[in-house]
């Protein structure tokens, strides 16, 4: 068997694949965070909880109503997005003029509530979601085995990321969004319904997280706590990438997933810490992040 740096190629490519998939999740999550941050100027601490909700809703819909994967792929983000709009409307809006720190604390409280309540209902051990039949099996490449589902996750996550980037950077709706980021009062003066835009943006960012959750349901164990630790990693990804650009969030997310995968191959004990180490190095040399503008 061929070896690279003393590691069998199959092992290396397997870990790279896992890294790539994790990276796709990081990209989706940090993209949602970046969009919400752009317009609302808050860090959505409930983002991990929304990711978890997406996965959990998928499982529960399947178990109780027999809703299949494809429907869940649309329905779960829609439901969670609507939930997000409610949170924005009833909670976040009340403290809109205050220091941004308060909205971070508010969403932190919301995350504690969601996670705590669901832990009491579903326990900590994790729910299982059966892989849809059509995804069983995989491609046999000569150096590795690529399960269909993992290939699908990578493709669809990249498509959604690219689509979001396209809408924000290239369309009129995206132009409103970017203008609202620059100066929401002036936008209001031009007759754009900024409060509605804010609600929908929060809902959309949260729906992206839920979408990642649906994708994660068949491959990770679904537990009420699954979002919390992922979120902190995503925070580090966001710091590394910088908050300035949508594209930066996507690229950094995937890059960090791959780096994590490589670390798992060559030095496993550091794999859970490596992203934070990268963050420290980036902070020392580029405090505003790789793609960020100095705030």
């Amino acid at each position, binding site marked *: 068997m061929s070896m690279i740096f003393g590691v069998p190629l199959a092992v290396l490519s397997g870990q790279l694949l896992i890294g790539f998939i994790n990276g796709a999740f990081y990209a989706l999550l940090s993209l949602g965070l970046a969009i919400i941050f752009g317009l609302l100027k808050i860090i959505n601490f409930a983002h991990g909880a929304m990711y978890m909700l997406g996965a959990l809703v998928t499982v529960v819909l399947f178990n109780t109503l027999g809703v299949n994967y494809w429907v869940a792929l649309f329905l779960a983000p829609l439901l969670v997005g609507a939930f997000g709009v409610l949170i924005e409307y009833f909670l976040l809006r009340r403290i809109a003029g205050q220091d*941004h*720190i308060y909205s971070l*604390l508010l969403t932190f409280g919301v995350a504690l509530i969601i996670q705590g309540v669901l832990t*009491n209902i579903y326990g900590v051990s994790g729910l299982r979601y059966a892989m849809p039949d059509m995804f069983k099996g995989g491609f046999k490449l000569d150096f590795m085995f690529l399960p269909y589902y993992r290939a699908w996750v990578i493709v669809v996550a990249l498509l959604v990321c690219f689509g979001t980037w396209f809408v924000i950077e290239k369309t009129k709706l995206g132009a409103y969004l970017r203008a609202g980021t620059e100066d929401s009062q002036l936008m209001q003066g031009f007759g754009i319904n900024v409060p509605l835009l804010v609600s929908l943006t929060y809902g959309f960012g949260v729906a992206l997280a839920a979408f990642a959750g649906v994708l994660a349901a068949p491959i990770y164990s679904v537990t009420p706590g699954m979002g*919390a630790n992922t979120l902190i990693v995503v925070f580090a990804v966001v*710091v590394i990438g910088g908050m300035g650009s949508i594209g930066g969030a996507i690229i950094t997310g995937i890059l960090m997933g791959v780096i994590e995968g490589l670390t798992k191959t060559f030095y496993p004990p550091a794999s859970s810490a490596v992203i*934070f180490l990268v963050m420290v190095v980036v902070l020392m040399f580029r405090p505003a992040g790789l793609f960020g503008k100095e705030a």
Partner: protein
Amino acid sequence: MSQSFDSSNVRKAILDQQKSQDRRKMLLNGVLLLLLLAAPFAMYPVFLMKILCFALFAVAFNLLFGFTGLLSFGHAAFLASGGYTTGYLLSNYSGLTTEMGIIAGTLVATLLGLAFALLSIRRQGIYFAMVTLALAQLVYFFFVQSAFTGGEDGMHGIPRGHLFGLIDLSDNMNMYYFVLTVFIACYLLVQRIVSSPYGQVLKAIKQNEPRAVSLGYNVDRYKTLAFVISAALAGLAGSMKSVVFQLASLNDAHWHMSGEVILMTLVGGMGTLLGPVIGATFVVNIEYQLSQGPLRDWVDPILGGIFVLTVLAFRSGIVGEIQKFMRKNLG
């Protein structure tokens, strides 16, 4: 216009008011001190020590959050590094007296605080919160992987030892009055810092950082020092906690703990001296009461609810609201 208007009279009135406020404060502090001295005869001393340790933790955090305006989401790292260091030293070097172990733990937390500050201090607002959270997570993983912490099991059976090699701390009363002394000393220290010219600069930075810069203050250095002092006191709290409970565990390093100290400070009243103490007492009590009753599995969502409620309805916290009320009604 009144003819009898006289600026010296006005000044005298202001001074009188100041004096009566000071007198009220002195009285309040005296009563609190008496209560704290008498408390272990009425309540379980270990529970009181738990409150004091968390109160010190919150006081330390408040110096940074309430007075300097920096929200650190990584203070658990200092609590844990203090606790683990002290626990490791006291468990493995029997020649060390307790206070030496505690001082060493505090020093380690101080150095860690300096490292955190150097990496994060130039970031603003929520960015700062995210960076400190991520750094603390790095420290958490370090503790998970390291052999000396006992990993998931934690560090057990840390000897309380003898203070200065003389006073036996395995006696709960001795331990309590030692913890109380350290707590009061730290509280007075923070009070002194906040009212000093240095503390005034910190408040200026909190209120308007660009103006503080334009007045010629090197704000990064002021903020770094505040961060390091805060980390040191948080480490001291962790060190004492590990001696009191003879236990140091991963719970102290988890981001959950960083969230809890924010809640204590916020509920009690950020930017007030007494607020974090009241907040810590409140949160520790609520957690204890809930854990005894039928709601024991609902501690997290209830804390989350308190978080949301505090942010939405009374941001100045218990002490802040009382101060507002007093100002309005008593002048």
